[in-house]
């Protein structure tokens, strides 16, 4: 294929509609006789439900139905358990509506359906629920301790899993190591805060026996398959559409959230379409969260700073239920070694239930934790060994001639963590050059002489991306000459409608604007797993390429008959099909498509099937590993604790870049989210498990005004694991930000000897650390 479009910085096909307000989000779905649902949620972190009485609510004006657990029948059982793991002893999932107990503030207790959302919300107040409050397990360490209140009485413990991975002989490495450093590193809770919260619209057509669902989800096909099984319908009788989705970031890849079952059920029972749109306050308690972990970590080195071994023993907060299994802690533990040679490694985690909103992957999904721990350990070692922090990293980097490099661990996809390609020293060198590392100390001294506290941070990461099991794509050339493609991997803003179109355009000799990409509609394409783990470009992108290639070959075969030439003489370009060297013997692509679907007479046997159409799948044996380095310069005001970002440099390698504009957008968004999680955003719960940050007044998102202009450098080491050479880039931006900021803040506050061992920070926390340092000085 030519590469006219693949790799080009072209603007996105999806943007005109999105920017002009012509997108189609779930809340834009308006159907005749649409009813509206509202969810009654638990105000208690932990309580027994003594009694629920919906009589007053049902009698209220405009109310059509009030569902409690007693109304759910067979749908009342625990929701499906995704991704089991042998170490996950207590794989607890919630019920669509709580039956006998609630285990976090926000857990769904009843569903009201009414003529309007207004009436439905008013009726929530009329549901009488008697709770018997129970003691709550709130703080992660307390919940893990013996004698803690039990989140799940029948489990007899709050520990749902313990899991250990080991490489080499860690005990021996530590016993013989000349230098060892140990730290406790703490990361707190955050939430992804997509622009669009969750939402579901469902309609049941009793004549067609068709259940149609519009869902702001990252995984429409598994939702379709699950609903078909639960509702006892053939999969072809359930259509799930994820239309435009205003950001996903991981929490929208659940199967299921309660509303995804309740809304279809209500629609079927009432014989009317039903809409539920999550409001922001609900989102803060009813959509999965992430990030809380406590690591006791230790590093062993020789006197030159060479790593001999690393170990971490950590607690992972699962929240009240663990539908998504152990993905987050496994990713944290396997990301930790990063781009460094760690010959001996011990990683052991305890996953713990708490009476807080359940946890499932959020952009980064454990990777920020692993990187934070490794980079903090290296910073500590560099300082105490008197080695420059970039130099200690350089000395331990895996070299370009060592690939494939086997880390010795098992990744989230159950395949070995085997780095396929990369040039780690080159990325570090380029980031150091871009940020001006060499003369930083001189710069810093100048600022300090002027009474200003500036610091530089530099952090490295390796990111597992593009895991299986598979994705697929169908490419069809329409008689108009336009191309239609469908894939199961939905888009939440990543630019699939453009990147996939670019790949197709190059194979079929059309422009990306001629390619319509349909994603996230089970009626258009019914096989796939979803958008997660930075895998769309890698797995679906490759399937798109394989299918487009097959259509090109078919086009050649059909055109060869029409143009009386051999298939290998046929070329495709500029929307035309022609004989090489004889551009006058050309047909428009659409004409070939029309000819490939004859109305009469015999179809040549070598055409095999009608039309210019092909479906292909790609199933990578394992993930491919991207990498990068972030470097930043921050200023801290020690009197207020406030941070300002002066510069932020990102050098990353996601293999071959399909569209630099899209990759940069992903990086920018990721870094912004990472910075939020490093300094502004924190979910706070009180001692009883009441969330205290449920508005954007209290949960602070960074805005454009808080952020510097990001400086991005692309390195491209193609992966050998797929024909496009691409690696994932979706989560990259967020991963090393906490580590880089921690180091930069520490560097800025060197005169105070402040040590940063926690994320997120905040102005108040930085101020406290400075005050503590001043007191002890």
């Amino acid at each position, binding site marked *: 294929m030519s590469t006219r479009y693949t790799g080009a910085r072209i603007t996105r096909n999806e943007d005109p509609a999105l920017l002009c307000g012509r997108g189609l989000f779930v809340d834009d779905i308006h159907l005749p006789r649409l009813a509206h649902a509202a969810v009654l949620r638990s105000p208690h972190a932990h309580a027994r439900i003594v009694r629920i009485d919906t009589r007053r609510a049902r009698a209220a004006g405009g109310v059509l139905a009030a569902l409690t657990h007693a109304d759910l029948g067979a749908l009342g059982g625990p929701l499906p358990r995704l991704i089991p793991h042998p170490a996950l002893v207590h794989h607890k999932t919630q019920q669509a509506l709580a039956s006998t107990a609630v285990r976090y503030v926000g857990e769904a207790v009843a569903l009201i359906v009414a003529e309007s959302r207004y009436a439905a919300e008013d009726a929530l107040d009329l549901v009488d629920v008697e709770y018997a409050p129970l003691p709550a397990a709130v703080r992660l360490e307390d919940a893990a301790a013996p004698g803690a209140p039990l989140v799940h009485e029948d489990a007899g413990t709050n520990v749902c899993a313990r899991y250990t991975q080991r490489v080499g002989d860690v005990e021996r490495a530590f016993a013989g190591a000349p230098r060892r450093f140990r730290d406790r590193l703490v990361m707190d809770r955050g939430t992804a805060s997509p622009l669009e919260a969750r939402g579901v619209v469902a309609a049941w057509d009793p004549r067609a026996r068709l259940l149609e669902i519009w869902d702001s989800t990252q995984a429409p096909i598994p939702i379709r398959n699950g609903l078909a099984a639960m509702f006892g319908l053939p999969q072809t009788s359930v259509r799930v559409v994820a239309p435009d989705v205003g950001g996903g970031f991981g929490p929208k890849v659940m199967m299921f959230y309660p509303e995804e079952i309740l809304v279809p059920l209500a629609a079927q029972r009432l014989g009317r379409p039903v809409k539920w749109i999550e409001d922001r306050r609900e989102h803060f308690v009813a959509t999965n969260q992430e990030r809380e972990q406590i690591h006791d970590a230790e590093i062993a080195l020789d006197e030159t700073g060479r790593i001999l071994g690393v170990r971490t023993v950590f607690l992972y907060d699962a929240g009240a239920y663990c539908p998504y299994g152990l993905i987050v802690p496994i990713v944290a533990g396997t990301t930790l070694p990063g781009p460094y040679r760690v010959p001996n490694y011990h990683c052991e985690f305890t996953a713990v239930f708490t009476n807080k909103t359940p946890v499932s992957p959020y952009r980064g999904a454990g990777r920020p934790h692993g990187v934070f721990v490794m980079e903090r350990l290296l910073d500590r070692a560099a300082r105490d060994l008197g080695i420059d922090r970039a130099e200690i990293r350089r000395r331990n980097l895996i070299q370009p001639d060592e690939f494939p490099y086997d880390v010795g661990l098992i990744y989230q996809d159950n395949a070995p963590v085997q780095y396929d390609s990369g040039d780690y020293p080159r990325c570090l060198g380029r980031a150091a050059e871009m940020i001006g590392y060499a003369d930083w100390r001189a710069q810093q001294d100048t600022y300090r002489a002027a009474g200003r506290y500036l610091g530089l941070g530099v952090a490295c990461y390796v990111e597992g991306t593009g895991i299986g099991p598979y994705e697929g794509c169908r490419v069809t050339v329409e008689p108009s000459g336009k191309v239609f493609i469908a894939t199961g991997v939905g888009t939440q803003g990543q630019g699939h409608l453009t990147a996939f179109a670019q790949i197709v355009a190059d194979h079929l000799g059309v422009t990306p604007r001629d390619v319509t990409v349909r994603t996230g509609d089970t009626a258009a394409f019914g096989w796939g797993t979803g958008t997660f783990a930075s895998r769309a470009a890698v797995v679906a992108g490759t399937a798109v390429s394989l299918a487009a290639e097959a259509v090109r070959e078919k086009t050649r075969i059909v055109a060869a008959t029409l143009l009386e030439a051999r298939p290998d003489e046929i070329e495709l370009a500029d929307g035309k099909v022609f004989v090489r060297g004889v551009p006058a013997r050309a047909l428009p692509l659409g004409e070939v498509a029309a000819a490939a679907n004859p109305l009469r007479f015999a179809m040549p046997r070598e055409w095999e099937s009608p039309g210019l159409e092909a479906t292909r799948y790609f199933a990578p044996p394992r993930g491919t590993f991207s990498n990068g380095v972030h470097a930043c310069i921050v200023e801290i005001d020690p009197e207020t604790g406030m941070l300002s970002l002066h510069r932020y440099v990102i050098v990353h390698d996601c293999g071959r870049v399909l569209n630099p504009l899209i990759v940069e957008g992903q990086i920018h968004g990721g870094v912004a989210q990472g910075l939020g999680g490093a300094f502004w955003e924190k979910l706070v719960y*009180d001692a009883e498990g009441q969330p205290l940050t449920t508005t954007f007044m209290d949960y602070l998102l960074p805005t454009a005004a808080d952020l510097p202009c990001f400086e991005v450098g692309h390195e491209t080491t193609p992966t050998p694991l797929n024909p496009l050479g691409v690696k994932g880039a979706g989560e990259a931006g967020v991963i090393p930000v906490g580590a880089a900021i921690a180091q930069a803040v520490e560097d800025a506050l060197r005169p105070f000897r402040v040590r940063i061992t926690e994320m997120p920070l905040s102005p108040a926390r930085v101020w406290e650390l400075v005050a503590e340092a001043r007191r002890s000085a």
Partner: protein
Amino acid sequence: MKLEGTNTLPASVETVWKTINDPDALRSCTPGLKELKATGPDTYQATLQIGIAAVKGTYAGTLSISDKRAPTHYKITLEGTGGAGFMKGEGSVDLEAQGSGTLLKWTGDLQVGGLIAGVGQRMLGGVGKMLIGQFFKCLEERLGGSA
């Protein structure tokens, strides 16, 4: 959330004791109290309406007085639920003669959950103090003091 404070009231311990045991006084002095119905000795069914920040909630619940040691001490327990969540409070009142007046010491422990906790928690301490202040100011007026 724990709150505490003291107030000096211009009446004898006995008079103050009578007043703070008088359902009428409680009814007219408790801010936001819409309804107070005796359901037994020292037990009341109460409806309270309280607004914090943008959130207004009506709580239906019970108010009871216990641990009575006339005329100097009692415990007051309040439990309510409503659309804005739940509240649970426990407080104690101690009276002490001070000259011709009475020193009233109070402590309270308030727990809230649901909407009001999420949205209004930061303001709760201040609002709680203000409401309790209003309560005692009203008592003071009833006892003939200058407000």
